[in-house]
């Protein structure tokens, strides 16, 4: 696997984008702490609360996710293909086999990886995914999930979202303060100035919250692209993952069977503009558009994979 990675090289553009996003996130942190200093809210207390929340989430992520998704941990006897494939791919990736392999009884095709470290990782797939995909495609999806584990994405994303937790908490605190205390504006002399300051802080926290959300979502999309790339390297076939993504996204199922000439009379009603993909929704999306992922995988397949032939 390492040899494959050496030959394929690094996606410098993606790496640069991730670094840029992390830098912007750092600026957001600095802005938040400056705001706390400005308003006199004790940073220490806020940090303890935020870190505590995130640490709990980080430490318990595998158990929490297994519980909320009702995924059932399966043995090698119950799901030999899953166990064998994950074991082989883990060896190739140079990570220990995840502690838990689970199956969710769900028709929707999906998969996830969680856990605070490769040793404590969990990989889960839905029954719908196993039914819909070929073995090669399923292997590609598992490779993608193992790449998330190898890249420690749970850790990266959980800790990166600390700012959102803190800003969200502050937003709520300031909201209730404004509701019940009017930011102190009516109670004491000079209260008007204090109220204006707190109002400015409230607006600032809201801006930081939404800006951070966008950055976290952006970072998440980049981590997905990196997992696509690394997963392809692990299992050796970007085209299998591209094919799996097409099936999972359900785009192909949308393509109609009726001939254009048969629907021609209905065309008069096609005056409502086609859904163009909401820009804000795209910004907040944790995953990149399927088309973009497929295109990147196709590029990988076309440009580099001939080296292995």
């Amino acid at each position, binding site marked *: 696997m390492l040899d494959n990675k050496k030959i394929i090289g690094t996606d410098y553009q993606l790496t640069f984008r991730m670094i840029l996003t992390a830098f912007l996130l750092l600026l957001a942190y600095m802005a938040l702490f400056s705001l706390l200093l400005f308003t006199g809210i004790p940073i220490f207390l806020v940090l303890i609360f935020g870190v505590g929340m995130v640490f709990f989430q980080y430490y318990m992520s595998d158990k929490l996710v297994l519980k909320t998704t009702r995924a059932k941990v399966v043995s090698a006897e119950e799901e030999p293909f899953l166990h064998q494939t994950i074991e082989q791919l883990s060896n190739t990736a140079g990570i220990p086999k995840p502690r838990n392999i689970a199956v969710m009884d769900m028709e929707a095709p999906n998969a996830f990886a969680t856990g605070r470290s490769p040793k404590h990782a969990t990989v889960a797939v839905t029954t719908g995914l196993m039914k819909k995909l070929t073995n090669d495609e399923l292997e590609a999806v598992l490779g993608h999930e193992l790449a998330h584990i190898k890249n420690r994405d749970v850790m990266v994303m959980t800790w990166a979202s600390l700012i959102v937790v803190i800003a969200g908490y502050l937003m709520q605190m300031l909201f209730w303060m404004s509701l019940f205390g009017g930011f102190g504006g009516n109670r004491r002399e000079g209260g008007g100035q204090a109220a204006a300051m707190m109002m400015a802080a409230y607006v600032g926290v809201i801006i930081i919250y939404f800006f951070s959300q966008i950055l976290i979502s952006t970072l998440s999309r980049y981590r997905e692209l990196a997992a696509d790339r690394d997963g392809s390297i692990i299992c050796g076939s970007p085209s299998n993952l591209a*094919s799996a993504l*097409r099936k999972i996204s359900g*785009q*192909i199922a*949308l*393509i*109609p*069977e*009726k*001939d*254009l*000439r*048969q*629907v*021609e009379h209905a*065309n*008069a009603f*096609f005056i409502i503009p*086609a*859904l163009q993909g909401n820009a804000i929704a795209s910004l907040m999306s944790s995953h990149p558009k399927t*088309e973009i992922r*497929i*295109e990147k995988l*196709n590029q990988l397949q076309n440009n580099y994979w001939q080296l292995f032939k």
Partner: protein
Amino acid sequence: MSFLSSFFKSKKNDMDILQSILRIENININQKTNEVLFSSAILLSPSDHDFFKTFSVSVNQITRKIPNITKINIVDSDEHGIKWVILSSTSFKNIISVTDEFSKIIASQYLGDRMIAGIFKSNINSQDCYWICNYSSSKFYPFVPQKNKTRNSELEMTLGHTLSKLGIPVEPHGKWYPIWDAPF
């Protein structure tokens, strides 16, 4: 505004747009320049208008006004009762302008609402591929038919995405209606 510009609602001119499409094909076509006839078709839904009563004559009158047409083929009524005007030319560049001219003349006779689609045929990785412009939505989509009325949806998805990247408005997937048994 010309036919294709209005189709694509793009700031690019017609030649840029279709040459963009041409680039998708890895320029296989360029190697055969002047050896292959490039074709396009315009699908028309007939009405009581005089134009359709003397369809062949009307089409011939129009095409006489347009240079660079090498061949015209008319399908008077297909299995859906639709009329096809198939235009051929010796270069891809010409087929674009020929289709553009022809469509403008039809539209000038207040028959724009009878035009269903404009189709350009090309070949990608040895597979016939049709680029369909749906007149009613002014959007474009690829159609790659295979045997037994099946289609290469995966290739279509890739081509559709490439069109979007070129700034060409693409139909949503739910409106990628096939046009089976195209007579060209």
